[in-house]
Structures are given as structure tokens and as C-alpha cells.
């Protein structure tokens, strides 16, 4: 089994290394795909943190009707085939979609734009972040908040000064995992955002698209994606290894 998992990587690297003229290839599509991928995932990650953190906090700290149902929908994209996610996004934000029709009246079209790329990434990646954040919030004893409240901290201050610092590492790990997932997003992007160099063609789309045109572009792009995945993995490992672990008693609460 280990061999089965290892051999494809070795084969990929070997194949890329033995390609002729790898240096003389047309770099333009690669550069624009890398730029586009890094740019869109950066936006997706920022949105994921800004919108996902409060949701994770609310899901962790409050009890309200339909909470279980919302949790299911938050986590569904993790197990859902990305191409189905793309179809769902198209049904919602497409020009004939549920949200798309009202948007069209405002002269906003989402499919085949950068916004579609970001939405696809956000849709498939944010569950990873929200889940990480929520489970970290769940593990924090309520006493922290109670103590801070007794000391006169506002709810915002409790969240900002107590919960966040306590969860920074878990949030960062969730962010990196989410980012890696966003970077690899293919199925939903393909269906919902289309494929146009410099506009919506992210790295995974280029890997697929260049397969029939220039194998060197495919392999070089695949290697860049692999390197970024290794980087993400290393970062999460490093975060898990640095001390003190999240579970320790925070110093500032004495």
C-alpha cells in the first residue's frame, strides 16, 4: 500500500525530470495560472477567515434551531464531489440561477469570471476551516469566557482577546488545509468558472488543459502544485509540533 501511494509521486517527478526541452517551454500560461491561483486562493482564504470564524464561533457557543442542519450543510462540501458543487453553484449563481437572476438585474454575472473561481474555492475549502475552528472553540472551556466576562470584558473583547489567541494555531492549521484545498479546486471551477487563460484558468485547469497541447506545461505546473502541497503539509506539521500546545493553560489568565 505504501508503494502504491509513493510510486505515482516518483513517477510524476521522474517523468517531469526527463521531459525534453523543459526549459524552453512557453512559460506564459504557467505564469498566469500561478498568479491567478495564488491571487484567487488568497481572496478565498481571506473571505473564509472573515466569514468562517464567526460562523464557527456561533456554531460552537450558541444553541439555536436548525443548528444541526446548518452544521450538515457546512460540512457537506467536504464529502461532496466537486463537480456536483460546481453544478450546485451554477444552479445558484448561474445566469439562470436562483441568485443569478436577481443579480443579472443588477448587471452582475458570476459564471466565467474571477468571482466564480473564488466562489468555487470558497465553497469547497471553507468547510475545512470552519470545522477546524469549530472543534477548537468546542474544546475551549467556557470558564475562560466566564472569567473574562466577570472581569468586565465585552462579548467582542472575549472573542477577540480570549478565544482567538487561544485558537490561533488551530485556525492557522485550518486555514492552510483550506488553502491547499482551494488551490487544488478543479471540478467546480471547470463547470462554474470555465477555462480561460489569465481570467479563470487556475493551475489545476492548466494541468488538465495543457495535457493535450504541451506535456511540459502540464508537468511543470503539476510539480508546482505538488511543491505547494508539500509546503502546506510541512506548515501544518510544523504548527502541530511547536510548543506550547493549544491545550496549555494560557498565561495571561494567570
Amino acid at each position, binding site marked *: 500500500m505504501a508503494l502504491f501511494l509513493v510510486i505515482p509521486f516518483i513517477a510524476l517527478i521522474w517523468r517531469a525530470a526527463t521531459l525534453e526541452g523543459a526549459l524552453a517551454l512557453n512559460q506564459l500560461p504557467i505564469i498566469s495560472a500561478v498568479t491567478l491561483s495564488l491571487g484567487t486562493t488568497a481572496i478565498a482564504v481571506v473571505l473564509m477567515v472573515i466569514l468562517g470564524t464567526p460562523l464557527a464561533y456561533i456554531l460552537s457557543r450558541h444553541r439555536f434551531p436548525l443548528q444541526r442542519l446548518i452544521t450538515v450543510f457546512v460540512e457537506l462540501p467536504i464529502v461532496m464531489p466537486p463537480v456536483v458543487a460546481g453544478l450546485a453553484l451554477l444552479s445558484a449563481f448561474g445566469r*439562470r440561477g436562483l441568485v443569478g437572476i436577481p443579480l443579472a438585474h443588477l448587471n452582475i454575472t458570476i459564471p466565467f469570471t474571477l468571482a466564480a473561481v473564488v466562489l468555487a474555492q470558497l465553497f469547497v475549502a471553507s468547510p475545512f476551516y470552519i470545522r477546524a475552528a469549530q472543534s477548537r472553540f468546542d474544546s475551549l472551556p467556557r470558564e475562560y469566557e466566564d472569567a473574562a466576562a466577570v472581569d468586565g470584558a465585552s462579548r467582542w473583547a472575549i472573542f477577540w482577546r480570549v478565544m482567538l489567541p487561544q485558537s490561533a494555531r488551530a485556525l492557522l492549521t485550518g486555514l492552510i488545509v483550506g488553502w491547499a484545498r482551494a488551490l487544488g479546486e478543479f471540478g467546480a471551477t471547470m463547470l462554474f*468558472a*470555465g477555462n*480561460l487563460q489569465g481570467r479563470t484558468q487556475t493551475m489545476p485547469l492548466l494541468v488538465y488543459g495543457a495535457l493535450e497541447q504541451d506535456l511540459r506545461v502540464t508537468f511543470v505546473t503539476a510539480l508546482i502544485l505538488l511543491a505547494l502541497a508539500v509546503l502546506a503539509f510541512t506548515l501544518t506539521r510544523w504548527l502541530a509540533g511547536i510548543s506550547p500546545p493549544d491545550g496549555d493553560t494560557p498565561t495571561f489568565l494567570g
Partner: protein
Amino acid sequence: MKAKWVFCLFLVWGLIGCRAGPSGDAASDAPAGGRRRTELTVFAAASLTDAFNELAATFAAQNPGVQVVFNFAGSSQLAAQLREGVPADLFASANTTQMQAVIEAGRVAAGTDVLFVSNRLTVIVPADNPANIHALTDLAQPGVQLILAVAGVPVRAYTDEIVATMPAEFQQRFYANLVSEEDNVRQVAAKIALGEADAGIVYTSDVTPDLARRVQQIPIPAAQNVIAAYPIAPLADAPHPELAQRFLDFILSPAAQAVLARWGFAPPPANENP
């Protein structure tokens, strides 16, 4: 510890399953007439999907024990797969360029390919024609969301050929309207049918009865249109060479040509080697 054993058991079971797979396939290579079905693998341009599916049913009915298995995709994608050594019996391409690429890769013997059908291009728009397009020239209007197949796919090569005959200003504005490059012609048709873009360029044969209900055709005048010639050839290393030849002969038969005509294809430009 127990979990470990259960896991190992699953692993062994998985491995046995994997072994059984290929041997099962090998058995299906047995000649027709045996208990098992012979699978003839045909790589065909996406535009041939409907016509070939119908023809395959007829062919299978005429040849008991034979099942035609298709891989429909953009011809460039199929050519890439064939160059990578994916096994197949026949390759039907939407242009000679992709067939040539496979010949150069040694998978098809030069001179064994035959033009079997031809096609023309058409502009399609969603049924309600949101961008109000009535001619090819309207595609260069500002704000039109245009979808084409990606470079390398035959329909795109034919499209570029048509556009190249237009004024430079049209060309520039036409390509500026491009919002997505799909990996085969049927994806272009599907996205227009969904109404996600304003216009696309496909083959006249792509406007199937089903699609015709959801899109409008804006014909490209014959003077500007190009003739797309489709070659078909058996693979040099076809697992079922005899059957492949039989399918090829069947495609060239009047009966099959009538089916192709019904799906919007025209006869080949000249029934000889390209």
C-alpha cells in the same frame, strides 16, 4: 491490534480484487461467439456522440457478442491519450490534424485513415437569445459572452479559420468577447443550452433534436463556412484488428452514412485517403 488484522484482510481482499480485474478483461478479448462479450474500443470526437451511439447499437445487433465501447472527448484530448499509449481499436477524429498527430506517434499506420463524414459550423445562442445575435458579425459586439472550444480541439481550429477571413477589427473584438474555452464541442453546446453564455460556435450536427429545443441556430453563410472533414482509422496495435476493420467498413456503408446524415453530418469531401 484487531483493527490491524481487519485492515490487512481488507488489503488482501483488495489485492485479489485487483488481480481479478485484468484477467477478466483478458478473457473478454476472446473471439466473438464465445460466452463473453468482445469489447471494441472506439475513440471518437465528441461531436460524433449521438450518431455513433446509434450506429453502435446497430453494429452490435449485427455482430452478436460484440459491444462497442466509446471514449467521446475533444479530438485533441483523444489524440493526447492515444499518444500516451492508451489501448484502443479505432480513432475517429474531427480533423486531419489530430489524426496526423496520432499517425506521427506511430499509433496509426499512415494511409490507413479514411474520411468518412463532413460537417459545418454554426453559431448557437440560448433559445431566448439574450444578446440579440442574428449574424456571425454580431459576435464581435461589445459585451457578448462568447464560449469556444479550447485551442487544439478541431472545432476551434475551424472557427479560427473562419474568423481569420474576417477584418482584423472583428477578429480582435471577437476574441476579446471570449469568456471560456471548453475542452470539447459538446461542453460548448451544453453551456449555451444552460444559458450561461450568449453564444458559442459548434457543428451543425451538434444541434441535435434535444439541443434544438434549447438553443437557436444562427447559420454561418456557406461562403464563410468551412468544411470539417472527419477521418477514421484503426489503431496499428488494435486489440481487435479484424473487428475494427469491420466497424470501419460499417461506418462507410450506405446504411451508416444515412444515420450520420440524419444526425446532421454531410458526406465526406472525397471518399479516399486525405
